[in-house]
């Protein structure tokens, strides 16, 4: 239901929201509406840039506990008001945008750290905490979640969980979803539920997975217990240049399947090596730059470094030494700041995907071919940055340096670039996304990935959110 601001019902609902969260925690200010109308999605930025009308919320609420979240959802169901959950607003897929208006539920005040258990090595915290604030608190105790992507500075813990975020050390410690022990969530209808105290139960499906990756469509995560780890005694790096990505992928694969346990491997294609690695790190080399990091107890690290180096050497890598590897680590976040990031007026997208080692290189070339054959003016670049025992993530990107002035035409080409690259990935055994999520951007592609099994997700949505008020239009789940 959209309410006119002039309607007294608007004020009635405003009063009810203020009664739940306190007057200071509900806003209808124009300044806030503008600030919540743009997240990190290129289309939202484009619309803002061109002075077009962006979808804005009617109300912005800042609940401080799960009880308040519950009451907000019950109220929203009563009046059938759409609710969009906002964490850090740093998502690139448009998942936090209030496209249906209604209520923005900002979770950042759900940020209390309840317990740091150094015996069981877990932390229990409010799910709206900004990740870096959690890391700061943990660091004081000599521990970390080890989920430390660049977006830790701006994203919330729940934001990572609902988008299946991946951190820079994921190759060793897993994705955020691998770190979740249990959680408290508020269902779209307002019930507060808790998942079992530990995840490894033989008692039915894993309830955590109902909410992990749900992008604020199936519930609102309010409290989480996560695994924490001791800071490693040592963290070492080594960099190589290989002739091409084929060799680089093979080296990365070997590092994984030979039982060495790198915390990070990052392989940049020739275009990124020539462009970004030179610009950000100042390393001017031709070929594919590969860096890996190994960490833990020094004796073990020394041994693993030795074995890893042997693999790099066997494939005739140019040894850039540990210094140029450490240089990457020290400046790893610089890539994500202006002026190093792509920015409007460029049109750009990160079409990250993941696949088995057998498929991933085919996917890289298929995506590149599809992009370049469809658009003569496109640039396609990529790196491989999160490695598993069975495959690796491809962080592919496309860039139009000079997109059409007309925003509608520009968006049409942008969407088409997504279609052709993502479909190329799907056709070779990839998926529509690895760690940014689906949101609005890839909503239309969900059925293409899932086929008839998408009905399971739709059914889940129907049962959990009968009024369809939680984050409508997102993740292929449409609108009621």
């Amino acid at each position, binding site marked *: 239901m959209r309410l006119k601001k002039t309607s007294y019902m608007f004020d009635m609902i405003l009063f009810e929201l203020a009664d739940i969260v306190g007057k200071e925690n509900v806003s209808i200010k124009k300044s*806030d509406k*503008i600030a*919540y109308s743009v997240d990190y999605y290129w289309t939202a930025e484009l619309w803002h840039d061109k002075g077009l009308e962006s979808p804005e919320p009617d109300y912005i609420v800042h609940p401080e506990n799960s009880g308040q979240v519950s009451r907000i959802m019950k109220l929203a169901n009563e009046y059938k008001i759409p609710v969009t959950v906002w964490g850090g607003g740093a998502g690139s897929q448009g998942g936090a945008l209030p496209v249906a208006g209604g209520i923005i539920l*900002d979770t950042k005040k759900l940020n209390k750290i309840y317990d740091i258990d150094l015996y069981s090595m877990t932390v229990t915290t409010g799910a709206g905490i900004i990740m870096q604030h959690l890391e700061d608190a943990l660091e004081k105790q000599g521990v970390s979640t080890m989920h430390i992507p660049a977006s830790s500075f*701006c994203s919330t813990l729940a934001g990572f969980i609902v988008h299946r975020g991946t951190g820079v050390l994921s190759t060793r410690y897993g994705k955020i979803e691998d770190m979740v022990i249990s959680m408290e969530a508020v269902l779209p209808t307002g019930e507060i539920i808790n998942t079992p105290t530990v995840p490894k139960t033989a008692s039915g499906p894993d309830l955590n997975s109902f909410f992990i990756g749900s992008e604020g469509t199936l519930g609102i995560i309010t409290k989480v217990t996560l695994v924490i780890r001791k800071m490693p005694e040592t963290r070492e790096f080594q960099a190589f240049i290989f002739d091409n990505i084929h060799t680089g992928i093979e080296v990365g694969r070997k590092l994984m399947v030979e039982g060495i346990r790198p915390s990070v491997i990052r392989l940049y294609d020739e275009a990124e090596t020539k462009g970004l690695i030179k610009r950000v790190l100042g390393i001017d080399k031709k070929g594919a730059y590969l860096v890996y990091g190994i960490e833990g107890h020094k004796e073990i690290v020394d041994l693993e470094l030795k074995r890893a180096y042997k693999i790099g050497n066997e494939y005739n890598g140019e040894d850039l030494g540990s210094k140029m590897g450490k240089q990457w680590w020290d400046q790893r976040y610089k890539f994500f700041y202006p*002026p190093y990031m792509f920015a409007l007026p460029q049109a750009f997208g990160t079409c990250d995907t993941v696949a088995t080692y057998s498929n991933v290189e085919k996917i890289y070339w298929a995506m590149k071919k599809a992009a370049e054959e469809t658009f003569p003016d496109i640039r396609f670049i990529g790196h491989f940055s999160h490695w598993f025992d069975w495959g690796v993530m491809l962080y592919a990107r496309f860039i139009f340096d000079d997109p059409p002035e007309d925003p509608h035409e520009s968006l049409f080409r942008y969407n088409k670039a997504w279609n052709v690259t993502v479909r190329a990935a799907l056709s070779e055994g990839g998926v529509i996304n690895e760690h940014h999520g689906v949101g609005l951007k890839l909503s239309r592609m969900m059925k293409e990935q899932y086929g008839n099994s998408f009905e399971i997700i739709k059914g889940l949505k129907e049962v959990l959110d009968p009024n369809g008020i939680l984050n409508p239009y997102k993740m292929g789940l449409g609108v009621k």
Partner: protein
Amino acid sequence: MEIEKNIETLKSCRYCPMCRHVCTSGNLSYHESDYPRGRGLLLDKIYNNNLEYDPDIVNSIYNCFLCGCCWSNCEGNYKMHELIKSARIDIVNSGFAPQAAEDIKSRLLSGKNPFGGNNTVYKAEERKAGLLYIMGDNIKFNDHAIVRIVEDLLSKLKVDYSLLNDEPPDGKILSLLGYHKDSKELAEKLYIRINEINPKVILVSDPLVYDLLKNDYPSFGFKIDPATKVMHISQYLAKLLKNRKLKLKKSNNKITLLDSEFLGRFNKIYDEPRMILKEIAGESFVEMRWVRDKTLSAGEAAFVFNDKLFSDGNLLGKKICKEAKDIEADTIVTLSPTAKENLSGCKDLKIVDIAELVLGQLSDGL
């Protein structure tokens, strides 16, 4: 528009959320419009899409602490605090200044306490001396204790010093509020008095006044005699210590330092206060989690109008207090009167200005 001078910052920051974790105002209210990205979006709408300032947008711009934490954590070196200062000038020039700022201006221009409290100024005695202590508006009206401590300290150290009787307003507050022209006019009165005296040393306790003399004066075209040294009290005391003209008793207290953004981040004064604290506390001196360029805001540009115009300084003080407790400090040493005021709610710890600490630790025989 004045914000054109910072157009690259506007372009770069309007969509970038990477400094969210360190933003002082944003992490007090958690409203998107109180983070640099939110402010960038609003100013971009105004600059590029003819949106007009309204009271809510103006509040968002005035809620910024101008602390520069975002700048210190920016790989692109963008100075959001400069963009905000220029936006405030535009707001004032467009006639949209918030009433609280207007009230401060009119009080300052009529020689009254800018903060609306007691109008009694500290009674100073002016005499011919090589060292001139400038109080600044906050101390002059609201923190007589600090100037008494400094006077006591300088007397005990047998320093030939003077204050100005009827010290003119310094202009810094108006500068921070966006009243560029009025700020310069006020500052000129103080500048003329300083030049008449032409001291060897200008000593200040308030980092805002230090920043005024060091950075605003050149931008106003004011030139202080190059032979005159402008010093914060911590620098002056550190120099005495270095030259063995200051002897301090040791303390077993676990002392920590709250860096000042206007002294540290904007003027790179970090070592001198630490030299003093290490002399006093030795191994008992403990550093905060975030120090020097990465220090969190002390709230110096939030002045003391809690809940009136700016985000709540005392709320910020509670956060700082918690940081100090986390490192098990029992004393927080501050470098500015506003920082001390912001920490006034921190009841479990001792909060002292650096001059106050030194006065208490003076060795006998001086």
